C-alpha cells in the first residue's frame, strides 16, 4: 500500500455536482417565480400612478372639497365632489351601523356557541357563500325585496342595505379569526370566578380581540365603499347635495365616476378631469381606511405575554 492510494478517497465524493439540466431548470423556475411577482406589482403601481397623475389637478382646485356638481354640465368646468363624498360616507356609515352588530354576533356565535353544531356548520357555509355573492346579485335581491315587494322608493338606504350583504361576511370572518386567538385561559379564569358566559364574552373576550375586529371592520368598509353595481340599480345619481337617505337620488364617488364615463370622459376634457378626480378622492378615502386599520392593528393590539 503506497501513500498515493491512501490519498485516494475510499468512496466517491458524496456531494456530486448538479447536472446542467437540473441547474438550468432551477434557475429558470427562480426567474419565472420572481417575474410573476413583478407582473402583479406592475398593475398596482400603474393604476395608482394613473389615478394620482390624472386626478391631482381636479382635487387641488378650491371648489373640489366644498362644492357639489349642481348646475354643472359636461361642457362647463368647475364644481366639486362634496355631494359625492358625503353620499359615499353616509351610505358607508348606515351600512356599517347595520352590519357591525350582525357580523360581530355571527362571529361570536360561531366561535363561542355553535362552532361544532349543525347550525354552526351551515352558518359557516352560508357565510362563505355570502362572501362570493356578486354585488349585482345583492343589489337585485334588495330591489326584489325592498323596492318591488315592500314598495319602498329607490334610495340611499336601499344601497346601504345591499352593501350590508357584502360587508357582513367580511366582518364575520375577521371577528371569528380574532376571537379564536383569544387564549382559552382568559375564558376559563373568568368562568372560575363565577362570571356568566355572556359577561365573559362581552367584558373579557371582546375587549381582548377589539383591535383586530375594528381593523376588519375598517377594511370591510373600505371594500364596500367602492362598490358601484348597487348604486346603478338602487339609487339614481344626483349632481346636487342630498342628505336624505330615504328619498331621492344621491351622489356618491363611484356613481360620479360612472356618470362621467357616460358623459363622454376620454374625449371631452371636463368629464375626464372629474372622472379621475373622483377616482383619486375614492382612492384617498380607501387608503385612509386602510392606513387607519393598520394603525389600529399595530398600536392597539393586546400585548403579547
Amino acid at each position, binding site marked *: 500500500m503506497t501513500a498515493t492510494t491512501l490519498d485516494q478517497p475510499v468512496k466517491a465524493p458524496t*456531494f456530486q455536482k448538479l447536472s446542467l439540466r*437540473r*441547474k438550468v*431548470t*432551477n434557475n429558470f423556475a427562480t426567474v419565472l417565480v420572481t417575474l*410573476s*411577482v413583478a*407582473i*402583479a*406589482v406592475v*398593475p*398596482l403601481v400603474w*393604476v*395608482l400612478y*394613473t389615478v394620482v397623475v390624472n386626478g391631482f389637478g381636479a382635487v387641488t382646485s378650491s371648489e373640489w372639497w366644498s362644492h357639489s356638481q349642481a348646475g354643472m354640465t359636461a361642457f362647463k368646468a368647475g364644481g366639486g365632489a362634496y355631494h359625492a363624498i358625503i353620499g359615499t360616507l353616509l351610505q358607508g356609515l348606515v351600512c356599517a351601523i347595520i352590519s357591525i352588530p*350582525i357580523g360581530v*354576533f*355571527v362571529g*361570536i*356565535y*360561531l366561535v*363561542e*356557541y*355553535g362552532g361544532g353544531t349543525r347550525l354552526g356548520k*351551515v*352558518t359557516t357555509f*352560508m357565510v362563505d*357563500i*355570502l362572501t*362570493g*355573492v*356578486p354585488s*349585482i*346579485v345583492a343589489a*337585485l*335581491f334588495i*330591489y*326584489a325585496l325592498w*323596492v*318591488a*315587494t315592500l314598495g319602498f322608493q329607490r334610495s340611499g338606504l336601499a344601497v346601504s342595505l345591499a352593501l350590508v*350583504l357584502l360587508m*357582513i361576511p367580511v366582518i364575520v370572518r375577521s371577528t371569528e379569526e380574532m376571537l379564536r386567538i383569544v387564549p382559552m385561559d382568559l375564558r376559563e379564569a373568568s368562568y372560575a370566578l363565577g362570571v*356568566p*358566559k*355572556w359577561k365573559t*364574552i*362581552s367584558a373579557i373576550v371582546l375587549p381582548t380581540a377589539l383591535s383586530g375586529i375594528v381593523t376588519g371592520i375598517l*377594511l370591510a368598509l373600505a*371594500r364596500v365603499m*367602492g362598490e358601484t*353595481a348597487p348604486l346603478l*340599480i338602487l339609487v339614481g345619481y344626483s349632481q346636487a347635495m342630498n342628505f336624505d337617505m330615504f328619498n331621492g337620488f344621491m351622489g356618491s364617488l*363611484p356613481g360620479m365616476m*360612472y356618470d362621467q*364615463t357616460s358623459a363622454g370622459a376620454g374625449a371631452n376634457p371636463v368629464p375626464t378631469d372629474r372622472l379621475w378626480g373622483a*377616482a383619486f378622492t*375614492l382612492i384617498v378615502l*380607501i387608503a385612509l381606511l*386602510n392606513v387607519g386599520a393598520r394603525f389600529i392593528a399595530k398600536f392597539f393590539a393586546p400585548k403579547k405575554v
Partner: protein
Amino acid sequence: MTDRLDVTESGGLPNPADAGSGEVIASPFPEPTPISTDPSKNAKVRPGDRIFRGLAEGSGVLIVVIIAAIGAFLLWRAIPALARNEENFFLFGGNWVTTDTSAMHFGILDLLQVTVFVSVFALLLAMPVALGIAIFLTQYAPRRVSAPLAYMVDLLAAVPSIIYGVWGLYVLAPVLKPFATWLNENLSWMFLFQTGNASVAGGGTIFTAGIVLAVMILPIITAVTREVFIQTPRGHIEAALALGATRWEVVKTTVLPFGLSGYISGAMLGLGRALGETIALLIILRGTQQAFGWSLFDAGYTFASKIAAAASEFNDQYKAGAYIAAGLILFILTFIVNSLARAAVAGRSKS
C-alpha cells in the same frame, strides 16, 4: 399518508412517530370518560346568558335566512316575466326586447357564453401568475421581503372595480392596441383571434376585459394559495433538501403536491369573483347587437353587466323581472362554483 411520504421514498413503511400507531399497541384499556369541564352544566342559566345566546344564534340563523331569501325572492320576482317570455329562456341568444311587456324576448345563451368565456380567459391568465407569486412569497423570499410584497398583492383587491374599469378602458386598452392588432392580423386563422363584433383598435373587447379581470382576481387566488403553501410541513421540505433537491425540486416534490387542492380552490374562488364582476366589464366591454363568436375580439354583455346596463328599465316589474331572472342564474352559477371551491378546501383539511 402515502402522498406525504413520497418525498422520502420510504414506500409506506410504518412510521413510529406517526400519531396513532403507538396507541394501538400500548393502550389496551379503554379511556376513562373525561370529566366534564363545561362550566354551565349544572348551573342555572341566567337571563343575560339566554338573551346573549339568542342574539348570537339569531344572527347565525339570519345569515342562513338571507341566502335562502336571495334565491327565493329572485325566483319569485322572475316568474311573472318568465311567463311572458316568448323565447326559450336558456336557448335564446339574441337581442333582448322588453319594451312590450306582454310579449317579451329574452334569453341567457349569449350572456352565459360571454360570461364564461371572459372569466375563463381571465382565470387562465391569472392562475400561473398567482402560483408563481405564492411560491415566491412562501418559499423563495425572506420574511422581511415577503410580508410587504404580500401586502402589496392584497392591496390589488382594495382598489375598487370601477377604477380598474376606467383604467382598463382609457389607459390599458391604448397600450394593448398594437399587440391586439398584431394578434388579429397574424393569428386570425385561429378562432380566438379572428375579427370579432367589436373594433380591435377600439379596445372594448374581451381581450382587454379579460386582462383587467385577471388583475382583479389575482389577489384572491394568491391569498388562498399562499395560505395553503405556507402550511407545507417543515419536515417534508427538509427531507427533500437532505436528499439533495434543488430549490425548485423542493417546491415540485413537497409544496405543490401538498398545496394543489388549495390552489385549485383558490382558482375556483377567483372564477366565482370573475363571473360576478360587474362594473369594470360594463365600462370596458362595448355593447353589441351581433352574436357572440368565441373570439377574444368580440364584445357583448356578461350577466352582471347586462343587468347593470339596464338599470333604467327597473321601473316595471316585468322588465325588471327579465333581468332578475338573469341575476338568478348568475347567483346559482356563483353558488355552485363557490361551494365546489369550499368543498375542495374542506376535503383537504380533513384528510
